[in-house]
């Protein structure tokens, strides 16, 4: 794999985080902001631990990460299905099963092409996509702030415990698993790259959450997708509604975050089984779609996903510790 810069590294992971936040379901409050902030700190500590231990070249670890990327890709696909119910995608019966399949097929096709161009191209494109996304977010944030009601900050109430909000914050950070592959191919110090990414992630999370709370705090109880609703109620231009514009950023973030998972898992599949060299991306995508279908009835941001994320961050340090102990014993 080719080298990526720290900015590209951050952009790839941030797009995945942004996509997860766009599909945020349920209520959002200052309590959620606190839990997510705490979650980011914990994730930062675990990420640093992962970087410190380096990459493990073992077959078992590669297998784990390959399955993890497939699982997280499936979660993202599933999230896209769920969120597309709140976003108008122009296709006849786009909310029906065939419409959903067609939309997923098109996204899968785009991801297949993206992953075929290699991680270097994806990382370069992610940086530009992240910049476009940042501009859009700022526009929405400014326009939402114009119509914001400061009382919404206290009006919005969470219906979850701190523990559950914290679990959700971890479960929504599945892109972090990519650290295991991306850190090894990042130019310069991986610590600095991770620091840069977490600062950007914290800023982005706070900006999105505060914008959402300020804009839709009053109607949080009746909102299924608060981030989507925030985009719908903020009116930066003299249009009737601008939520269709949100579709652009949603699709771009979705395609790139799924594309990164496809690239990473296909890369590991090629390493494990060179015979699959030409079909690695197609196989990975097919399994991802199947996974998305299988988990369609489950809580995708629940304990299971959070455990998978924690495992993805801890498996290398644990393996390294065991190895060191075995070496010391010998």
């Amino acid at each position, binding site marked *: 794999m080719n080298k990526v810069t720290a900015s590209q590294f951050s952009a790839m992971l941030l797009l995945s985080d942004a996509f997860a936040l766009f599909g945020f379901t349920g209520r959002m409050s200052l309590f959620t902001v606190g839990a997510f902030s705490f979650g980011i700190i914990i994730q930062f500590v675990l990420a640093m631990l992962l970087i410190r231990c380096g990459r493990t070249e073992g077959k078992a670890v590669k297998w784990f990460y390959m399955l993890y990327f497939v699982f997280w890709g499936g979660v993202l696909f599933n999230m896209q299905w769920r969120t597309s119910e709140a976003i108008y995608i122009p296709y006849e019966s786009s909310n029906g099963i065939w419409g959903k399949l067609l939309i997923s097929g098109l996204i899968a096709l785009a991801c297949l092409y993206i992953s075929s161009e290699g991680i270097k191209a994806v990382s370069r*494109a992610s940086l530009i996509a992240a910049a476009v996304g940042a501009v859009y977010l700022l526009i929405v944030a400014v326009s939402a702030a114009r119509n914001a009601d400061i009382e919404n900050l206290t009006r919005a109430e969470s219906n979850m415990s701190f523990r559950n909000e914290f679990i959700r914050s971890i479960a929504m950070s599945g892109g972090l698993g990519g650290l295991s592959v991306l850190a090894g191919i990042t130019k310069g110090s991986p610590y600095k790259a991770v620091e840069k990414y977490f600062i950007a992630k914290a800023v982005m999370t706070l900006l999105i959450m505060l914008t959402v709370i300020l804009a839709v705090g009053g109607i949080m109880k009746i909102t299924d997708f608060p981030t989507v609703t925030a985009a719908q109620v903020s009116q930066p231009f003299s249009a009737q509604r601008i939520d269709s514009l949100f579709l652009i950023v949603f699709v771009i973030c979705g395609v790139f975050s799924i594309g990164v998972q496809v690239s990473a898992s296909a890369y590991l599949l090629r390493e494990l089984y060179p015979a699959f060299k030409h079909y690695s991306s197609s196989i990975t995508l097919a399994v991802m779609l199947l996974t998305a279908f299988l988990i369609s009835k489950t809580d995708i941001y629940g304990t299971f996903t959070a455990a998978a994320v924690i495992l993805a961050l801890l498996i290398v340090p644990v393996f390294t510790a065991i190895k060191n102990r075995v070496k010391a014993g010998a």
Partner: protein
Amino acid sequence: MNGELIPKLKDNISHIKQLSGNSSDLLVNEFVTGGVHCALLCCEGMVSTSVITELIFEPITAIEAKKDSKELFHYIKEELLLSTDRPEVNDYDTLFRLIDSGFAVLIAEGMRTALAFGVQGYQSRGVQEPSGEGNIMGAHEGFAETIRTSMSQIRRRLKTPELVMELMVKGEKSRTDICLCYMKDRVPQELLSRIKGSLDEIKLESILSTGYIRPFVESQRFELFSSNGTTERPDVLCSKLIEGRVGLLVDGVPYAIVIPRLFCESFQTLDDYAFKPYYATFIRWIKYMAFILSILLPSVYTAIVMHHPELLNSTLLMILVEAERKAPLSIMTESIGVLLMYEIIREAGVRLPKPMGGAVSIVSGLIIGDAAVQSGLISTPLLTMTALAVMSGLCVPELNPPITVLRFSFLIAGGIFGLFGISLLACAVLVNVCATEDYGFPYTAPVSPFKKSGMGDTAIRSGFRKMQNRGFTVEEYHE
């Protein structure tokens, strides 16, 4: 044709005539000078008759008797100095190459070598103003078809021994002169050696335009945008050479290939450096915007009107509804029709003889356009959008081919799937553009990979006082 020259003059001439297939344009002038039987060979139309008469025939025929042909050749070559360019010929291959390049070749009885004199005098188009890269405040001089003229145009602008021009011959049949230009103190050595390696792979029979060479010096993967560019301006090529790039001149083509080429450079013109920085920056952003508009305007218009009308304010929506209500076809069909019509008219305008160009403009612009709107076949807002998109594309002429194809692709994607389709296609195009690179130089630099130092001539146009200390070479972008 690689055989050595036959020493017996009569046999030599017969053999040369036989090799040329008794071609009518091969001129053989037999004469005796210095007591030796000689013949001067040249190609009709390729040499200057007056130069041959004054500088070759007159001095040669005045030579006093010599001991033998060897002494005669020595005298002509070392003392007579008939022309500045006078290579020695030892085989028929070189002999024909030189004759076909406008040299006069002297053969003599008993000699296994021949003397060639550069007396080129073929008709060629002189130095003229570039047709596709016009500017206001810079030089109005473009490359010429004759490679030597183009080389001199570069040398006149870069009077430094660091400028190297390497001539080589490519094309089995055309034997086209190709000139590799670079600044030896600036060019990355790896880039230079890799380009030379790529040029060695050329096994074409003929090279008649830069398009024959460009595929050999770019990546083999499918790229929407080309990672090497062309210019018809010597001043532009010089600015690229100073930045450590490599230029390729092809004889018979008034364009130079620049390697590597970056995406942002398509928006830079020499005029940017003649105007004040604030104005140049403004113009540059106008061009970026024009590029986006040229690709996306028809598709976004179609997507919004067909699928996302809520994005429009009520007044605009009513105007569009009123206009589109009268049109019998769907907006997507209308848009594709208008764009296709434009492409047909454009192609006709390019290929037709110039005097008919005016007639084409009148027929297309006034008659077809006006009639289509009047009859209600096409709505006025759609025609306005299409015209604006087409005009915007002309702001960046170098990118016109990909813009044209992308405009259609986005239109179809937007027409069927609205902004969702446009976003999906945009992702794929963005990755394709980001994957484009030539010899390790990413096409999207300095935006991604981001290079702060490069933004001074990309996002803005810094003043020369700032840029003179930059010491920029393209190697900074190498990955």
